[in-house]
């Protein structure tokens, strides 16, 4: 059994072993091994030069990574928590995302910004934001988030190998999730979603921390006779329209699940593009179950905020269970 945290640690270690240009830095990633221990042992194994602590300044960390990437390295930097990447926002939006395009391909920035994100671990304010939409909305960034232990390893390896900057969002809640894996291996490349559960009645689309919730919902929903398909996006950018569209065209119904505040989040994008591409197969609107549009609540209240199995089930109930054409068309003279 290996945890997601260990898989991430292994991915970093293996990448460092394979490529000397890979350097890891950030706050507390050295001797401490990171507050979540994702970089545990890397300094001991690869030396101070390969994994090191920096001064406490996120814009500095990301900007320094830009410079090192220009100088031939492949930096992997850690932001300690989601909200603590905000000081680096200008560097990310104006440089990390744009440099390849600005320089017409002459300066690529193969760097990874690791961001532990989301809630569910009892963190206090500013420690639980789901900030993926800020990055996903910024052209030039790839935005990736694993939901399984195997993918944590694989996607992080992909991210480090990728010639483009990757914002690697780590679901804190799943750091201690475990899997029995023979060998940590590469799975699918970026841009491929995974069908985590096949089903025929409706499609649940989720990513990162919401994938296990979606799967749990699918199990629970069988009791109510729903056979749900569950898609794990794996990479938000690039987006796997093919897998998503094929699924929804087949099931005709779709619910998008995500922790982030709903308004203008990634869930909105998913709903928008699903209805754009699958409208004529849809028997019901694409619905969303997301965090509320409130600042992330205090730890004792967070379970009320996060998408729960029950809330997803309630939402499924609104998807016109019986496959009746809607009344508008009946009025037009049609009949089922």
């Amino acid at each position: 059994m290996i945890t997601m945290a260990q898989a991430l640690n292994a991915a970093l270690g293996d990448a460092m072993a394979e490529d000397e240009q890979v350097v890891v830095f950030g706050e507390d990633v050295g001797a401490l091994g990171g507050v979540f221990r994702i970089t545990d042992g890397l300094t001991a194994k690869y030396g101070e030069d390969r994994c090191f602590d920096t001064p406490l300044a996120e814009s500095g960390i990301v900007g320094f990574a830009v410079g090192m990437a220009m100088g031939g390295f492949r930096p992997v930097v850690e932001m300690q928590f989601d909200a603590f990447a905000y000081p680096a926002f200008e560097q990310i939006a104006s440089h990390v995302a744009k440099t390849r395009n600005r320089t017409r391909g002459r300066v690529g920035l193969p760097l990874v910004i690791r961001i532990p994100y989301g809630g569910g671990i009892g963190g206090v304010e500013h420690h639980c934001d789901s900030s993926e939409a800020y990055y996903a909305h910024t052209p030039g960034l790839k935005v990736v988030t694993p939901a399984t232990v195997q993918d944590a390893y694989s996607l992080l390896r992909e991210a480090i190998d990728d010639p483009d900057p990757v914002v690697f969002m780590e679901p804190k809640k799943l750091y201690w999730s475990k899997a029995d894996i023979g060998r940590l291996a590469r799975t699918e490349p970026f841009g491929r979603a995974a069908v985590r559960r096949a089903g025929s009645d409706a499609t649940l689309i989720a990513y990162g921390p919401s994938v296990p919730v979606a799967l749990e919902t699918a199990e629970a929903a069988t009791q109510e006779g729903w056979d749900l398909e569950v898609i794990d996006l794996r990479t938000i950018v690039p987006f796997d329209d093919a897998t998503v569209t094929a699924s929804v065209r087949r099931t005709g119904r779709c619910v998008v699940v995500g922790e982030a505040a709903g308004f203008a989040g990634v869930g909105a994008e998913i709903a928008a593009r699903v209805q754009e591409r699958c409208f004529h197969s849809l028997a019901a609107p694409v619905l969303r179950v997301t965090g509320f549009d409130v600042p992330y609540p205090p730890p004792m209240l967070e379970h009320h905020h996060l998408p729960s199995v029950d809330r997803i089930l309630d939402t499924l109930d609104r998807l016109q269970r019986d496959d009746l054409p809607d009344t508008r068309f009946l009025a037009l003279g049609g009949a089922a």
Partner: protein
Amino acid sequence: MTGLAQALLPSAEPVRFLTDEGAVAKGRHRHPVPDPGLLRRAYRAMVVGRRFDAQATALTKQGRLAVYPSSHGQEACQVGSVLVLSEGDWFFPTYRESVALVTRGIDPVEVLSLLRGDAHCGYDPVRHHVAPQCTPLATQSVHAAGLAYAERRVGTGRVALVCVGDGATSEGDFHEALNFAAVFKAPVVFLVQNNHYAISVPLERQTAAPSLAYKGIGYGVPSERVDGNDPVAVLAVLTSAVEHARSGQGPYLVEAHTYRLESHTNADDASRYRTDDEAEKWRRRDPIARLARYLRRRGHLTDADTAAWSAEAEELAADLRARMNADPELAPLGMFDHVYSAPTPQLTEQREVLRVELSAERAADEAEEALT
């Protein structure tokens, strides 16, 4: 170097009034000695504060707090930073300033709300003139500058004092705060509690400066370094700093050299990045013991005092224990309150989703209870 520049630089060595043992240290200071009344108040607050801190740590072990960042060993700064302020002055704490907030007179349970996890800020910032405890590092320093400037504009004579850690001085906001404060002559005191670590990162990795107080001159802000475990020196220097600000001369930067005796928080394990020996050296500079010796020798502290204040500390701890052992009342729907001054239609809808869920849950619970 010009005279102006000279006037802005800190002393070559940290200001100290007491030796490590609490005897009077040699050397002359530009800062007047605090009066015995203030020192006695500081002593009492440190005793109470340390007991509070120990109790909070214990409550954390019992699972009553989500997390607790101890200030054990930093009591001189915790207490000094508050006692030099008047009631109307503003205090801008970080997550580590719980003892300071207790010293300020805030109900200890309200102080701990953030860390217990029932509310983001348990106390009323306006009533106490204390900003919410701030976790995004250094960000509050700009607020302090702005607020202090507002006070100056209104002419209240109030000042602000903002705490930041050694690590937080690396953030851009710290720089911007000092600069804004200086340019707008905002009456604000920046207190850097240099406890030598930012979680695991030691000071040498944070800065290559001779000392953090040397940052002041880059903004035209006068600066001072002080032995942060010498309560007499801390009170003396902070008193000067506050006077400087209050008199209209603008901001002042104080770097207090101190040490975080515990791990960063209960969740941290300091043994991964530092030795016990190092902490031992600092334990011998205990601010409470030093001040006790100093006050006793001068006859400003009696056994009756220490007995009374220890009892007071125990009482506070017992009360805190009792109240923290009760589960807080939670109002889940409250998360929709105060997002805006009035709810948007969208929030009203979303609140309704949760309200319906909660009442269904309640109904289910009641049904279950009825069955058993």
